């Protein structure tokens, strides 16, 4: 029925794709798992790039070049996304009065689906055929560039690669960047890099997997990976407890785990734990029957201030801390 590798149907299922992947333009369209393939017609699952960023930027035409439309297209060149306004012009067709009455404003909100139907007839994609872009002119850094984290261990790099200016009303929150970075030399009091992340055996999930007994058995205890040379300076032994202090004034108590995977200037902690807070076991506060198999300090208690300039996602990888033997 379906080819095991490509997922395309044959025989009775000819013209279909296994699982009806997005986008499925019309009730007869088979859907398409392809991101870009102009060697196939749109009806068969071929696709160009979506017209997503306007028609023109800085004098550059953003529609696809001549002859780069998917196979069997009525329009061989680039074309904008199809709306009720431009449909007759772009597709080169005439709509009846009834169709004009029923058609939606653009292909996204067209509940009559006339736009998609007409596009399929012409072998064209309703979302247009345009260029992809590598430069994001809506971002503060149109091309990605290095900026030191707010809490940087290298003051010389802070001067060379400063962070952004403070951003007012960033998703309704006044968010500090430069003012926080320049508040003081954070690396003086907090000399060690703090990196948190997920463990490969936890399959990308965060705290949730602590409720799976087999996953909890793999890593039953919160730990901090520390280079033996660094640990030695603070008198921390393998398996002994240690305090980690953050510039936010918070601290957590975790078990030291000697590891050569981390260099001497940093520590690593997994974020898969919760239930303890600043050395205190609060796991009795879980509602009855919801306590996970494994509890421990949450690494996020000590991750430093800092948010993404676009999405407001908190900074969990670039922070500083101070450690001591507990």
């Amino acid at each position: 029925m379906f080819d095991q590798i490509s997922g395309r149907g044959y025989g009775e299922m000819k013209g279909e794709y296994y699982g009806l992947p997005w986008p499925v333009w019309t009730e007869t369209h088979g859907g398409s798992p392809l991101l870009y393939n102009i060697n196939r017609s749109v009806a068969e699952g071929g696709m160009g790039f979506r017209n997503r960023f306007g028609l023109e930027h800085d004098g550059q035409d953003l529609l696809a070049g001549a002859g780069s439309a998917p196979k069997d297209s009525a329009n061989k060149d680039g074309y904008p996304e199809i709306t009720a306004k431009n449909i007759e012009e772009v597709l080169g067709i005439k709509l009846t009065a009834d169709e004009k009455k029923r058609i939606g404003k653009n292909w996204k909100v067209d509940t009559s689906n006339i736009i998609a139907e007409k596009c399929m007839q012409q072998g064209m994609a309703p979302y247009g055929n345009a260029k992809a872009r590598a430069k994001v002119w809506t971002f503060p850094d149109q091309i990605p560039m290095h900026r030191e984290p707010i809490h940087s261990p290298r003051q010389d790099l802070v001067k060379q690669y400063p962070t952004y200016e403070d951003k007012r009303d960033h998703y309704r929150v006044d968010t500090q960047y430069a003012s926080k970075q320049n508040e003081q030399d954070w690396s003086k009091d907090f000399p060690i890099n703090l990196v948190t992340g997920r463990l490969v055996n936890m399959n990308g999930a965060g705290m949730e997997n602590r409720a799976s007994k087999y996953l909890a058995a793999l890593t039953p205890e919160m730990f901090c990976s520390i280079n033996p040379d660094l640990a030695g300076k603070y008198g921390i032994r393998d398996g002994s407890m240690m305090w980690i202090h953050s510039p936010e004034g918070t601290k957590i108590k975790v078990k030291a785990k000697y590891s050569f995977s981390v260099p001497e200037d940093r520590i690593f902690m997994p974020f898969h734990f919760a239930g303890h807070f600043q050395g205190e076991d609060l796991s009795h506060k879980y509602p009855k029957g919801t306590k996970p198999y494994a509890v421990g300090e949450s690494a996020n208690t000590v991750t430093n201030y800092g948010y993404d300039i676009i999405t407001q996602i908190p900074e969990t990888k670039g922070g500083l801390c101070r450690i001591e033997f507990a």
Partner: protein
Amino acid sequence: MSENARLKFYCDEHRCISCDGCSVACAEAHELPAGINRRKVITMNEGILGLEYSLSIACMHCTDAPCEQVCPTDCFYIREDGIVLHDKEKCIGCAYCLYACPFGAPQFPSDGAFGIKGVMDKCTMCAGGPEETNSHKEREMYGQNRISEGKVPVCAAMCSTKALLVGDSAEISDIYRERVLSVGHGVKTQPYGWSTAYGSKI
């Protein structure tokens, strides 16, 4: 599979990323009690550049299985396809198989109070045990019998990097040989299925 095939596990240490997916899949599939890990991933020389590698270890289904030689109850039997299995109803939990095993594979669940050890449990290569194939009793005592259903053992089936291989030892060594020979210059052929999925075939 040839007629005198012997089924073996092989873990390619250049591919294993120590995700522990095999051991969790195993525990989940056979609903093993806590403390029993039929399969385990170990990491050698952790953090030492160039020397670190990981391996997934379980019963290796030895051809000359020492466990079978030392068992005082003779509860082991080696199937024609090389899978080493044992009879839990005969086993007395003396742990002699553990002493003889080079891999430490036999496991002994705590059975009741005072840490008394129960009967042995180990990897069955998803081939169940001496009970009636696919019976409820076999499922309870030995876990799934995927071999009888024509399926690959669950650990190797889910290995995302295809580090853990299982099958006829001759075929496994062919696959490994091809991998070794293509180190440094890439595989000669396109990735499996590329032309079918993205080309114009079908």
